[in-house]
């Protein structure tokens, strides 16, 4: 008995680039722009520092407060005479890394709580979702700052704290999605086969809720970059000499009159990065949401 498959009875496998989701995503021009921007920003931050003549910690005292496009420093220097271009790129690495890591962690927390609450429902589900509501009652910046001030700040701790204060949206989305998936036939079938609850939750339910999770995760990167910028700007986030886009702005206000570029340049970088991730998230939502065909 030989199993030979002819091209006829083999299912036609179309690549992901051919899928409807992907085509709709590309059609979304802003999302495409966002992807290009994110790739560019990442490349510049990863490669850029090797190409610049200064590193981010080199102090050039004679060139303190140089405005952009004068002298040897392309984007000018800060109050200590450090090259802003070099710091901006190194800061980009930190800020985007923190944003990504916080996204992964918070998505994991949110998805786990959401899937457990949605699958079990009943008392467990109610308690978990009420807990989500309770955490959401605290303005996240208040909670974030209090935790950052109480716990010794290191880049890893900041990432963890940001994740702790931004997993709730994902949990809500996953819970709603799982609650509607739970009644479908394939879950009934999985139960009848005697699969364990854990298998059903993480191997059957979660993969089917992936669309909304990816959208929420993309928007969480944007949110995490913003939150990191806030806490670092206020002095409770990433600590100098390690640069981040937020802490480059710390202290910029007192030089607003004499050296406005100190405030403007990092802010533009933050806005670019956050806008790009928001564009991507919005495009993904349109592409993954079947209902968007109707409007």
């Amino acid at each position, binding site marked *: 008995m030989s199993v030979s498959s002819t091209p006829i009875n083999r299912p036609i496998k179309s690549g992901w680039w051919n899928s409807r989701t992907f085509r709709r995503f590309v059609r979304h021009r*802003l999302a495409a722009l966002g992807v290009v921007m994110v790739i560019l920003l990442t490349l510049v931050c990863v490669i850029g520092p090797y190409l610049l003549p200064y590193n981010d910690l080199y102090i050039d005292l004679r060139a303190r407060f140089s405005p952009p496009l004068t002298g040897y420093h392309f984007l000018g220097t800060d109050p200590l005479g450090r090259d802003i271009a070099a710091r901006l790129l190194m800061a980009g690495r930190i800020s985007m890394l923190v944003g990504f890591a916080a996204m992964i962690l918070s998505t994991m927390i949110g998805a786990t709580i959401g899937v457990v609450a949605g699958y079990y429902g009943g008392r467990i589900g109610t308690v978990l979702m*009420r*807990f989500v*509501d*309770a*955490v*959401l*009652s*605290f*303005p*996240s*910046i*208040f*909670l974030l*700052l*209090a*935790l950052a*001030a*109480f*716990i*010794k700040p290191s880049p890893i701790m900041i990432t963890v704290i940001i994740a702790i204060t931004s997993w709730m949206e994902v949990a809500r989305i996953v819970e709603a999605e799982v609650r509607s998936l739970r009644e479908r036939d394939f879950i009934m079938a999985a139960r009848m086969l005697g699969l364990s609850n854990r298998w059903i939750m993480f191997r059957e339910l979660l993969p089917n809720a992936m669309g909304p999770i990816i959208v929420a995760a993309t928007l969480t990167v*944007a949110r995490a970059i*913003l939150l990191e*910028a*806030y806490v670092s*700007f*206020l002095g*409770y986030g990433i600590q100098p000499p390690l640069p981040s886009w937020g802490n480059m*702005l710390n202290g*910029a*206000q007192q030089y*607003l*009159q004499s050296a*406005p570029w100190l*405030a*403007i340049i*990092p*802010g533009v970088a*933050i*806005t670019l990065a*956050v*806008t790009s991730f*928001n*564009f991507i998230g*919005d495009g993904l939502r349109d592409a993954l949401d079947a209902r968007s065909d109707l*409007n």
Partner: protein
Amino acid sequence: MTRYILNRLGQSLVLLVLVSMIGFAVLNLAPGGPLSQFALTPGMTQADLDRISAQMGLDRPLVVQYADWFWRLLRGDWGRSFRDSRPVLDVIGGHFGATLLLMGTATVISVTIGTWVGIKGATKRYSIFDYAATVGAMVALSIPTFWFGLVAIYIFSLKLGWLPAGNMYTIGNGSFLDYAIHLIMPAMVLALVDVAVWSRYMRTATLDVINQDFVRTARAKGMTPRRVLMKHVVGNALLPMITLAGLQVPTLLGGALVTETVFTWPGMGRLFLDSLGYQDYPVVMGLLMFSAILVLLSNLAADLLTAFVDPRIRLT
């Protein structure tokens, strides 16, 4: 209706207990816990610390400590500030008005502009205006509030000299105009994010209403498009916005904190940061709980108001 109100009140109480548990957990996360204020004092021995700990009741089981803390929270005994020994609630009360003024003004601005942009975007869907509003809202959501504040100060205070760069009033000049001039810039900066959110939701809500049968009937009767919009669409589209207004309060409070820092506005956000700087933990904790309770109350108020104006909610 009574049943709905009681139900909703019960939910809020459950949330309050959960919120207080989270608050208590955060309190115990502070380095050295509630003892941290003494730990740094020179000449303090471990025996002294143990004695103070017993005096403050910190040697009791955590559950008892929590119950005690929660009971005092309910009675309004929120402890005293480390900085000036004033009761925490008094300190917060002294800063609450400024924040309320800022948030109120920002909300009025964002509701006015956001509603207009949302309705116009929905009625002229896929126009250049709609497209620009969509992109504009996304960019507005991406700009860090504090940075936008810095740029605004740079342009309107330092370059143009039109508006003051900070504070709530000029010392020795408490006139209404003086307050208003100081209020404009922080309120606009704070409103930016809210305008974006509000206009997006208003657009969706208006689209939902426009496609309903009663709007078609009104049009078929021969009503002018303008009257249909004013009489049938806007009111119905604003209904879900009441809930949104409640849900936006935490964002608004967080935004107020950042805005107040940049504009040295003497509100709760500024107080929060100052207290963090002084390690004044009772005030920090007080503000955390106060803002959470404020959020709970505004969500409750929004839901009750919706039920009051929309009979469909009450019946379900």
